[in-house]
């Protein structure tokens, strides 16, 4: 048995309080009143036609002999009251009661209905078990999966019941054909599950390839947060290994240093003065906090370092615009400090260890060569400068070994022997054929044409073994006059692969332009090395390999190459590092790359083995990959099996989300049993998993909002989970979110304040757009207006392109109203709306910016509130003309909730096109049409509303003339004699004279939508209370929502006994 909550009692007592204010009916007095007053009148004026035999209008009034007979069919008496109220009965020609008699009868029926309403006030009513309608199913699936999936695309369209909404259980039947569609949809959804090491998630895609690409895209996205994007260049062949030059050189995956330097330069003063921290600057400029701080420290380090000096010099000297030259300085230096290798060669015999490797351009000697063209006809002048490599000139004593001219097939010509002709100082040849120089120095060498034409100038430079032991120099050969550099010149490394075969390269030569000469084992070399290491540490040429998939290489077994150590070390925050690790794990798991890699390797080895001896060397080269690849594949297989159990756990947990409550232990084990049964039918883990997942999507507790019946038989509150579900389907047309479920789990929803708080939170959420779409647009009869196209292409060619925007306007208006807790008066009286540029132009407003925006002051353009929506005006029009009757009827029925008698059959027709009306305007035509006596009574009530809206054409555009060019007349006289003009007149009338009815209708519709049923007599007290409460609270929409969710109707469910009793009352 369910404990009756404190909330329930509280609410019941408040209802009692209200009941005292409104006197409860006295049924014994009513019984007397019936016997002595009402019944005799009925006998006199009604029983003649409404007898058991004649049953006019399918109604027999003679069976109501006593009040208890009346009470068994309260619904019939609501109808009787309506018909009497409209003066329809007794019909013309039949004997009529006197006004006093009529009043007496109506008063009695009124008293009785009030008493009956109060006697059952708060009855939850007959609510059919609700299947998720197509919209709810779609929203729920999207919320559950987090993926933009539309499994209901091909479902039959929903129908409406209850108060006219598609969420009423009795409009949602099930059939084998429909269940077949659910089954297909369930399988389709399951195909979107991505199995992960510790569970599963959903993707918009359904193939392994797409899931892999999705993960890759996210990894690349993370990378690009920290690196400058660079289009990769055209492929460049290195032997048979085709490599993007730019990848090789690390053009991609670079830190955008110019942006960092620019930020530091711009904020230098603020940082120095402590007005800002590095972290603040980083946030301001969208840069990595960690890296910016490191740069700041490094740039301001006063210590000397040959590699850093140039950069620090620029830093100190630069104005705010120096960022690019600073970045260029770093980039130039990087060219000598890093090399890039084809990823496909990694791990092979003789291959590189990684894509980007550190190098130091330090050499003990450097060969200088210069080839002289045979036919220049003039002397060649070379300038050989010796710089001190930025660390002072101490010990910089160099030897130029035997400078000479070399020719093939002839003896070398030593320059020493031609000192005069070459302009070399003979004193420099102190040690024989070689020269000794102290850096910094420049040597000008003239090579006379007669001596040097077609030969090659050659010398080898090294430091003097003793005097130059701790020296360091840089040699530069130019053909123009040059001076030795003051600092360190950036070196440049180039790589040469010799003998590159299909699968490996056995030799890789590095050569440098402008290397630094230092002696092996010298302290100078160690200092230089340390300085370069520090530079590399701070400025890796690339921080990640953003391409990930080395598709540009001819042959690689590597599916995905991860090299982002510098990025995680220098730039990424804690969360991003963890995310990257996770994504890489998922990438390998989802793509199953270890298995693919093994297959590929085995195929390759097989090929080589088949080719015999010729390929033995190739075979040997990839042999070292074999064992590790095999081990990785084995480990991965074990990993897959270990993951199975975790995935099943996740599936059971998912079922709980799908069922909108925790699954029971029995349900959880049933799921596992099904999985096991499927495995026993030889389904793979993945197939069995997906089938079990599909089962959750077709299960009754997912497709239906199952609510347990109270065991007591009487009406009782639904459970916490059921209430959470009611609330979320009311406001979001979807499952409860985590926060709402947490509140339900703690039993919080039984407390009115907590329930209200949840409702408020949910109203502010973006998902409340669904309430606007499902409730408001259905109420206004514009649901799915964006797909409805019955407008004439001849007169309104632009309509089809605009109808989606028209629909969007109305949805945004209601979404905003609910989100900001707007006043219901705004429904009619708003001075704002939401438009994009196209809609603004359509309304004749000046667009105020791109995209959807709030426009204020739209009254001038004839808009504001639901009366002025293009969607409603267009919906209640013909394809080629306006329809004052439809619009008037819409105001009457939809906005005011008036019930009009049915139109007679066999009514004469109006022309469909407003230009083909024999010279009469649509209004004149309608007037003539409805002045026939049998039509006039009703049309006098509805048509004037439509006339007032004649200032809008059939697609809701403002107009002064109709399609035939005749002026439209928007002045009209209402049935009560009041004269109004146009939309403003109608709006004022509705606000001032009919607001009570309008408000009641809105409350009624929202209550019906929330409850999923037709509003019934016993809801009247709640509706009355809503009206008073709204009036006291500035008509704020949340007041209404609060009252609905706190009502017994919303929180309770009928027990079987209560249903039985209610059935007797019908």
């Amino acid at each position, binding site marked *: 048995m369910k404990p009756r909550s404190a909330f329930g009692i509280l609410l019941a007592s408040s209802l009692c309080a209200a009941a005292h204010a409104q006197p409860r009916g006295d049924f014994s007095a009513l019984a007397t009143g019936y016997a002595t007053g009402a019944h005799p009148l009925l006998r006199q004026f009604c029983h003649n036609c409404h007898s058991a035999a004649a049953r006019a209008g399918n109604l027999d009034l003679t069976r109501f002999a006593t009040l208890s007979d009346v009470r068994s069919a309260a619904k019939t008496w609501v109808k009787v009251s309506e018909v009497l109220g409209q003066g329809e009965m007794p019909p013309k020609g039949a004997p009529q009661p006197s006004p006093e008699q009529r009043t007496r009868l109506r008063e009695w029926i009124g008293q009785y209905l009030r008493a009956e309403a109060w006697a059952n006030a708060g009855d939850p009513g*007959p609510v*059919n078990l609700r299947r998720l309608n197509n919209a709810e199913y779609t929203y729920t699936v999207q919320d559950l999966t987090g993926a933009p999936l539309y499994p209901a695309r*091909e479902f*039959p*369209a*929903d*129908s*409406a*019941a209850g108060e*006219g909404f598609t969420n*009423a259980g*009795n*409009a949602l*039947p*099930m*059939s*084998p*054909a*429909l*269940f*077949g569609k659910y*089954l297909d949809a369930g399988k389709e959804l399951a195909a979107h599950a991505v199995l992960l090491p510790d569970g599963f998630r959903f993707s918009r895609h359904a193939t392994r390839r797409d899931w892999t690409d999705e993960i890759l895209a996210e990894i690349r996205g993370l990378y690009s947060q920290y690196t400058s994007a660079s289009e990769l260049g055209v492929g460049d062949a290195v032997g048979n290994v085709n490599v993007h030059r730019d990848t090789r050189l690390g053009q991609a995956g670079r830190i955008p240093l110019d942006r960092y330097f620019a930020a530091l330069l711009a904020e230098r003063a603020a940082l120095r003065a402590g007005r800002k921290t590095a972290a603040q600057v980083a946030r301001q400029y969208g840069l990595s906090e960690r890296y910016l701080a490191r740069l700041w420290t490094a740039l301001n380090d006063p210590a000397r370092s040959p590699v850093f000096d140039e950069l620090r010099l620029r830093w100190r000297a630069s104005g705010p615009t120096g960022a690019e030259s600073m970045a260029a300085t770093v980039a130039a230096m990087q060219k000598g400090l890093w090399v890039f290798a084809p990823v496909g060669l990694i791990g092979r015999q003789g291959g590189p260890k990684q894509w980007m490797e550190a190098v130091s351009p330090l050499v003990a000697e450097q060969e200088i060569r210069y080839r002289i063209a045979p036919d220049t006809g003039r002397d060649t002048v070379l300038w050989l400068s010796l710089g001190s490599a930025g660390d002072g000139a101490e010990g910089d004593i160099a030897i130029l070994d035997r400078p000479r001219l070399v020719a093939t097939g002839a003896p070398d010509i030593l320059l020493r022997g031609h000192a005069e002709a070459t302009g070399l100082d003979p004193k420099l040849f102190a040690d024989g054929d070689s020269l000794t120089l102290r850096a910094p120095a420049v040597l000008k060498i003239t090579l006379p044409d007669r001596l040097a034409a077609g030969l090659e100038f050659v010398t080898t430079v090294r430091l003097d073994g003793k005097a130059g032991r701790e020296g360091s120099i840089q040699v530069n050969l130019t053909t123009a006059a040059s001076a030795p550099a003051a600092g360190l010149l950036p070196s440049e490394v180039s790589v040469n692969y010799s003998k590159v075969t299909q699968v490996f390269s056995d030799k890789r030569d590095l050569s440098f332009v402008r290397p630094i000469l230092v002696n092996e084992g010298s302290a100078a070399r160690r200092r230089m090395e340390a300085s370069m290491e520090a530079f590399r540490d701070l400025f890796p040429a690339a921080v990640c390999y953003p391409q990930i998939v080395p598709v540009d290489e001819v042959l690689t077994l590597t599916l995905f190459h991860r090299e982002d150590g510098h990025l995680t070390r220098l730039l990424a925050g804690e969360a991003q590092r963890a995310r990257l690790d996770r994504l890489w794990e998922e990438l390998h798991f989802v793509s199953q790359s270890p298995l693919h890699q093994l297959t590929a390797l085995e195929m390759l080895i097989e090929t080589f083995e088949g080719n015999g001896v010729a390929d033995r060397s190739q075979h040997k080269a990839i042999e070292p990959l074999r064992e590790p690849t095999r081990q990785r594949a084995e480990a991965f297989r074990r990993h897959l099996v270990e993951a199975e159990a975790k995935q099943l756990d996740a599936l059971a947990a998912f079922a709980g989300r799908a069922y909108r409550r925790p699954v029971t232990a029995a349900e959880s084990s049933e799921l596992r049993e099904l999985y096991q049964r*499927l495995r026993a*039918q*030889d*389904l793979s883990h993945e197939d*069995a998993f997906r*089938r*079990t997942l*599909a089962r959750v999507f*077709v*299960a*009754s*507790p997912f497709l*239906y909002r199952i*609510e347990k*019946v109270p065991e007591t038989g009487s009406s009782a509150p639904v459970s916490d989970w059921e209430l959470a579900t009611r609330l979320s389907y009311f406001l979001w047309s979807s499952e409860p979110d985590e926060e709402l479920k947490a509140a339900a789990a703690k039993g919080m929803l039984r407390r009115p304040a907590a329930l209200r708080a949840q409702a408020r939170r949910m109203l502010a959420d973006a998902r409340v757009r669904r309430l606007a779409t499902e409730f408001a647009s259905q109420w206004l*009869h514009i*649901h*799915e207006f964006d797909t*409805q196209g*019955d407008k*004439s*292409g*001849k*007169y309104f060619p632009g309509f089809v392109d605009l109808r989606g925007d028209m629909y969007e306007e109305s949805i945004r208006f209601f979404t905003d109203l609910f989100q900001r807790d707007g006043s219901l008066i705004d429904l009619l009286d708003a001075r704002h709306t939401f438009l994009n540029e196209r809609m603004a132009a359509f309304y004749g407003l000046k667009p105020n910016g791109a995209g959807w925006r709030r426009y204020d002051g739209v009254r001038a353009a004839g808009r504001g509130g639901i009366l002025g929506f293009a969607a409603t005006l267009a919906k209640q029009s013909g*394809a080629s003309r306006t329809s004052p009757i439809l619009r008037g009827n819409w105001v009457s029925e939809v906005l005011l909730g008036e019930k009009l008698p*049915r*139109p007679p*059959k*066999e*009514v004469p*027709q*109006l*022309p*469909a096109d407003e230009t083909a009306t024999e010279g009469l305007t649509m209004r004149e035509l309608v007037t003539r049409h409805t002045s026939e006596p049998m039509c006039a009574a009703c049309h006098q009530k509805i048509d004037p509303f439509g006339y007032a809206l004649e200032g809008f054409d059939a697609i809701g555009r403002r107009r002064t003339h109709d399609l035939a060019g005749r002026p439209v007349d928007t002045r009209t006289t209402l049935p009560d004699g009041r004269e109004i003009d146009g939309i403003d007149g109608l709006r004022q009338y509705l606000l001032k004279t009919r607001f009570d009815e309008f408000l009641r209708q809105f409350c009624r519709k929202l209550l*019906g939508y929330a409850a999923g049923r*037709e509003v019934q007599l016993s809801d009247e007290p709640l509706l009355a209370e809503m009206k008073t409460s709204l009036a006291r609270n500035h008509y704020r929409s949340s007041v209404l929502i609060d009252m609905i969710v706190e009502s017994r109707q919303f929180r309770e469910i009928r027990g*079987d006994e209560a*249903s039985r009793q209610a059935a007797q009352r019908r």
Partner: protein
Amino acid sequence: MRSHRFSRRTFFRGAGVTMALPWLESVPVWGDDTRLPASEPPVRLAVLFSGNGFHTDEWWAKGAGREMELGKVLAPLSEFREKMYFFNGLYNEEALKGNIHSSQTGNLLSGAPLAAGGEIRSGTSFDQIVAQRYGQSTKVPSLVLACERANPGIHKNYSMLYSSHISWSSPTSPSPLELYPALAFDRLFGDGAERGDKSVLDAVLTEANRFRGQVSSSDRRTLDEYLASVREVEQRIDRAGKKGELQGWRPAIGKPSMKRPADGIPQDLGEHMRLMCDIAVLAFQTDSTRVCTLKLNNDHSYLRFPHLQVDDVGHHELSHRNNADFLKVNQFFLGQFAYIARKLEATREGGRTLLENSMLLYCSSMRSGRHDAKNLPAVLLGRAGGKLHGSGVVDYSAKPNRQMCRLYLSLLGKCGLAMKQFGDATEPLLEL
């Protein structure tokens, strides 16, 4: 004996069938495997519907047989005059009680009263009675096709679900409409069943059965509808697995003679309707189903006909114009009917044509755009496997007992379901 004739499944169906059971039990029925000569092809039943009636002046017929004269709307059918009945003056009493449009269609094929207000209640339509009786014999019990999606909302106190559905599998369940040619094709020929499906269905059945005991009695009825639907799908899987059981008679075609239509709904309405007709014909040719309804448009239809250069208004408005364009659209609709008949006539089956083994009924919810439902338009083609002999006009406009359901009682009888009562009728039409 009885348990043999009425499968367990029959009892799980909606209330509509249990209502039909007493009559079923009392008569020996065609289609009962013990009685039917195995060499006889079965009778097929198709109902085509379009809403909003026809041109006021051009829906008529005179005479009988080859001399029969036809109004312009019926011109496309002239080649079938010798196998054609034209009905005049029949109507559904209940359809006169409610509102125009929305309460004239939902009970067209059942004659049942329609619930107003927020409720949904009609009656099981006669085509579905046939489907429920013979559905187990074919891959699909019935095809319920449509070329216009259902209207949402409520019109004058009646759900517009009524104006969008002619087939009802129970009083509270309109049969869902299939709008997608490709999906209709898949239902007939797709081997939808995959390994493990049965285990999945068993699991959800067990689960739903558990909830049956925990919900209110009215919710239990809804769950029963779910249970029956799941079981039906399960049985279909069973049936798909058993092939080649037919003795003697074999359908004209074993495999589909058309390729699977493209996904989605064709842009061109003519193509859409043509595909749906092809699928209906193919279903009969392959004996994949014996009952098919095809709703060409809704009552209160918004359909437009750009391919006929009738593009400025929707069908509903067009019906009020009652002009040459409306006539053109009427003929286009009847052209679909003729197209089906022609294809069936060209298919040989035993000693007859497939058209001669069928009954094709064309009907609408009202006579014309004036909402007149007291003289429902209806045309019947086919020979019901030799059970229909005559042709010509059957005119009840000046006679008593004008129940449309009398026609349905006749057609049910030709299908072997000799019922004593259906809807508001207690006797079949004597003319058939």
